């Protein structure tokens, strides 16, 4: 079972800063981590390898600094890591990103399964996984919470939908986007960290992929950011104390009046 896992390096959610002029994220000085939702995909890949053999390759499209995220994935136990990096990729939206990643995956190897996180915690779109499946014409299951069975030629998965768990069967190769419920990500081991330090990443540029430049980066992205707004975070709501019997009673009454006034009860 050869598995490819495209991951993303994201700023730690508690530490986000924006450039108010350009409306882009300030990445300098912000701690970067593997997208937390990609960890579930990595763990799923590692478990499948332990059960069925094969290898797990992680890849990411990003600046050279994204090598750190790939090394973390190696430290968790992934076998190979590929950094897809080029100034021409900068500013890519989900359309251009999924194009670049799908072309890179084609070049990196032949895979039975591609796993991605449900979405990244910064862009929050969840569009790149389905986009790669469309580019590569692979069967797709999104929001996968469980793999019921897997064999050389096919897979049965459960995906989380509004009514419950939908059970799908599909041939391999296929692409799955996974949710938290699927696995409990392991921590890197000391041995893994050592291996990661010694590991030399493979780097791929736009030229090496012989890509259509009109489909790359900001230029190749159909969507453009017009403006960034900063929503009011605090609502300045009413705060009442409910300590002691009398205060408790009046607090609950005030809440009920509030809800009635808003026609919520």
């Amino acid at each position, binding site marked *: 079972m050869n598995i490819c896992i495209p991951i993303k390096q994201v700023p730690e959610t508690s530490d986000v800063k924006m450039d108010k002029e350009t409306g882009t994220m300030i990445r300098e000085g912000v701690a970067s981590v593997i997208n937390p939702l990609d960890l579930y995909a990595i763990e799923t890949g590692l478990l499948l390898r332990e059960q069925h053999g094969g290898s797990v390759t992680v890849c990411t499209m990003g600046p050279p600094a994204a090598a750190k995220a790939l090394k973390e994935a190696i430290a968790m136990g992934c076998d190979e890591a590929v950094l897809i990096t080029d100034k021409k990729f900068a500013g890519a939206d989900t359309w251009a990103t999924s194009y670049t990643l799908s072309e890179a995956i084609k070049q990196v190897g032949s895979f039975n399964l591609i796993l991605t996180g449900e979405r990244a915690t910064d862009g*929050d779109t969840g*569009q790149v996984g389905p986009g790669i499946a469309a580019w590569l014409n692979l069967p797709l299951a999104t929001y996968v*919470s469980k793999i019921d069975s897997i064999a050389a030629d096919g897979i049965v998965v459960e995906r989380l939908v509004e009514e419950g768990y939908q059970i799908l069967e599909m041939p391999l190769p296929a692409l799955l986007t996974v949710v*938290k419920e699927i696995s409990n990500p392991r921590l890197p081991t000391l041995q893994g960290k050592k291996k990661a330090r010694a590991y030399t990443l493979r780097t791929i540029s736009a030229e090496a992929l012989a890509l259509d430049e009109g489909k790359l980066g900001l230029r190749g992205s159909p969507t453009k950011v017009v403006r*960034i707004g900063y929503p009011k975070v605090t609502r300045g709501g009413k705060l009442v104390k409910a300590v002691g019997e009398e205060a408790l009673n009046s607090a609950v009454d005030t809440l009920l009046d509030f809800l009635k006034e808003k026609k919520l009860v």
Partner: protein
Amino acid sequence: MSYVWTLAEQSNGRLREVSFELLSRGRKLADKLETKLCSLLLAGNVSDEALRELIARGADEVYVVDDPRLNKFVVETHSNVLADLIRRYKPHTILAAATSTGRTLMPHVAIKVTAGLTADCTELDIEEGTRLLLQTRPAIGGNIMATIKSPNHWPQMATVRPKSSKPLPLDSTRQGHITRITMLDEHYDDRVKVLGLRPYEEGLAGIEEADVVVAGGKGMKKAENFGLLRELARQLGGAIGGTRDAVDRGWLTYPHQIGLSGKTISPKLYVCAGVSGSIQHLAGIKTSECIVAINQDPDANIFQVADFGIVGNLFEVVPLLNAKLENCKKEGK
């Protein structure tokens, strides 16, 4: 004249409410563009009543592809059909719901038709002059609102967060036109098969679609205590949710999890107890219309975003609230 399309969704032979929310969004855009609003339905076992209801909820046109092979959502087949319709009819805009279906289908189609797509929008407008769709969405855990457009690619495509708009009132006098379109065999992709559906325990509807969500966090202390919140949810007609802490401790199952690694919701009313309000949790609830929080700690983060907060012991507040709501109901009768 190219139309504004909204993608209706059907489940078990019934239209989902979000189909009507999209029509209400689409109506405003179509009026501004002075074009028609078309509801598109790709499904099986479609009733005439459903098609008429789409008109009564704001559609001028209904395009329906009614085929048993579209009965269950399989992205490959739906994507083939939708991409073909886009190429044939060249709509100005397509809106779909940011549901498990819409968020799978739309990115797949956007690649095929080379269009820009914006995920999970909460505001939409038309730009004067250019007639482009301005798509506004929360990003980076709700810390920013990004407005996005696709200047050179058509159609304009967006998924829209469920519950972020209200359906138009039912107007059965509205007139509209229904077009039935035959699905082409070449669009059927039989690689993926739906083997079945395992419904959620307790028959609980998805929390993304609930008008009221009642949630608990670490402060609930143990699984049994969620009985208090279930009772409150019953009184308010809501669904049960929880923080990552509550799910990781096994008090609730994952489909109930709200926040960055769970679901993002926009209910009319969000009531939470014993929730401190981590950045990750707030990312999932920020677009709720009204937030009520009950927490012991007056400095808890959750009070920053609450419209109404009670500082107190939830094990005193919630039972009293339940009792008073019960009384209200009796008096009401």
